[in-house]
């Protein structure tokens, strides 16, 4: 298969398969998790301002008192690479065009030089959090194959995308095909690995916030 055929495949069949598995996987996993339900709390509630599921969904994005100092790399590195990923994925004009072609939706993007910089910063932050995972005893202890694997499948699309734009290492067509393939791998594994936190974190924060909101504790 030559580069062009490869690119054509990842753009059509490959993409369809990946998106199909992603969508069905996400729906199935959400059903599998949230259909378990939970019991109604029969204790008398106590209301307090700022204590609810929704409050916690937002509040948990900020470090609780004392935590930033205890683990600055987790927070600062975490912010940078999450925001960086969001910029690169959703505000790079060719990505928006892809979505427009698929769904008709469209929104303004950012200049490519800026997205370029965001990609580099994102990769740097991801490397820093990886080193932190190796260095910090608790993080290293908790880490399993899945943690290294999901780091790699998140990192590769950024790296290959950036290299394709920069025309580095490989011919553009091949690098672009590899970039799309890496995104497809990411889409396929996302629902079945810890990357699924992208969806469940809202539910988790809400449950925690609600259970504690019932006690009048803004968590």
């Amino acid at each position: 298969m030559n580069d062009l055929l490869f690119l054509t495949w990842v753009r059509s069949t490959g993409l369809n398969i990946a998106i199909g598995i992603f969508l069905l996987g996400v729906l199935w996993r959400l059903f599998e998790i949230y259909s378990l339900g939970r019991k109604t709390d029969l204790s008398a509630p106590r209301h307090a301002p700022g204590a609810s599921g929704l409050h916690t969904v937002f509040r948990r994005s900020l470090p609780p008192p004392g935590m930033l100092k205890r683990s600055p790399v987790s927070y600062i590195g975490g912010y940078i690479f999450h925001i960086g990923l969001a910029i690169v994925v959703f505000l790079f004009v060719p990505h928006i065009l892809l979505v427009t072609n698929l769904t008709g939706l469209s929104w303004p993007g950012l200049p490519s030089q800026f997205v370029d910089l965001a990609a580099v910063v994102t990769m740097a932050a991801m490397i820093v959090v990886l080193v932190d995972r190796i260095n910090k005893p608790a993080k290293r202890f908790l880490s399993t194959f899945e943690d290294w694997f999901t780091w790699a499948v998140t990192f590769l699309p950024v790296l290959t995308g950036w290299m394709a734009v920069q025309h580095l290492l490989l011919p553009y067509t091949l690098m672009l095909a590899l970039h799309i393939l890496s995104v497809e791998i990411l889409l396929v594994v996302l629902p079945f690995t810890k990357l699924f936190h992208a969806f469940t974190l809202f539910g988790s924060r809400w449950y925690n916030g609600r259970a504690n909101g019932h006690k009048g504790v803004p968590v």
Partner: protein
Amino acid sequence: MSATLEKGVRVLKEVIDAPIASYFNSCVHCGLCAEACLFYTETGDPRYTPIHKLEPLRRVYEQEYTLLGRLKKVIGLSKPVTDDELDEWQELVYNSCTLCGRCSAVCPVGNDIVYMVRKFREGMSASGHSPEGIRGAVERTVTVGSPMNVKLPAVQAQMKHVEEDYGIPIPLDAEGSEYMVLLSSMEIMNFPEYLGAVAKIMRQAGKRWTLCSTAFEATNAGIQIGNSDLARLIVSRIVEGAERLKVKTVISPECGHAYTALRWEGANLMGRPFTFEVKHIIEVLGEFQQQGLLKTEGFETDRLTFHDPCQLARRGGVIQQQRSLMNQVAQNFVEMPEAGYMNWCCGGGGGASAIEEGEALRMKAFKKKTAQFEAVRPDRVVTACANCRINLEEGLEHYQMDIPVIGLTEMIAEHIPDNAPQAATQS
């Protein structure tokens, strides 16, 4: 009721619900919960990372409730939970967890980790992997009525002492009272001044209150060990007592877990809402203060700080009241770093203080408290939990820090004049 692995795993399957499934799927192994846990921060041992304490529960979840996990189980790729493993986890689930909930307060994806530890203990207890010390406390509470073998005659003896010392009658089984006051065995045995303090405060406020002969013990070791059946039995005594005496409010004593057991778990254990309210004594004092029913004289002049019991503050939502009360009677009240919602646990809650073999670890973890105390160098520490108090006293003695620990209720009562004009008793 013999405990077996099979029973334990069945219970674990039963306790898993949508929140737990959501939490396990959200964890990204960031390890921030470790930074919030005094057993990790003071030992540096990563096994004490809160989310790791739940690993067997997570595997049961994966193997039973996820498609991929079930597939792995069918083709023999998954590792079943074993007795040996649960035995190893006993230290992690009980000795090194006080259910203080700091991990749940910091988890960036929002996991309520302590909620899961509480549920996991149900399976640990059903499979026979709960610590001897808490098991004994539960058995005594179920058979005798108190974790410390305190029976009604002992309570009546204390009532008599208090009546003589304070010159105030202590009502027992007074039907139709507004408040039914509960005690913890620790208070009956070690801190009888609590009962005297309540009597003084109630007299000044003009409130009708009573003790109950069939429900004087507030603590619930069933919650700590993780046995809902026994926890229900223990709670039901209080519910029956309160309903028999037709009281409006049941007052949980200065004991953190008694409050959680009754205020938040009680109705769920009983399977129906209560017909009465449940309040911690500090909440009641806070209300009296606001209503002008708490008139004190004079001030403590030495340097005082307040240790927030986890179940009262972080897990119970009572944070402001104790501060207002402190300020009413203390001129020199200083806050420790991270006091209030994020306060560090004394290290002995959740049944941990009943585990003899966990003592060395508890003392190690107590370094967190000594650091907090050293930051403000108080002359005395005030708290509102008899178990915190005992644990703080032990820890301070271990580290040779000469800081007395006192209960807030009794400190308030000391400032109520003995000849205080009594408000007209409200019926």
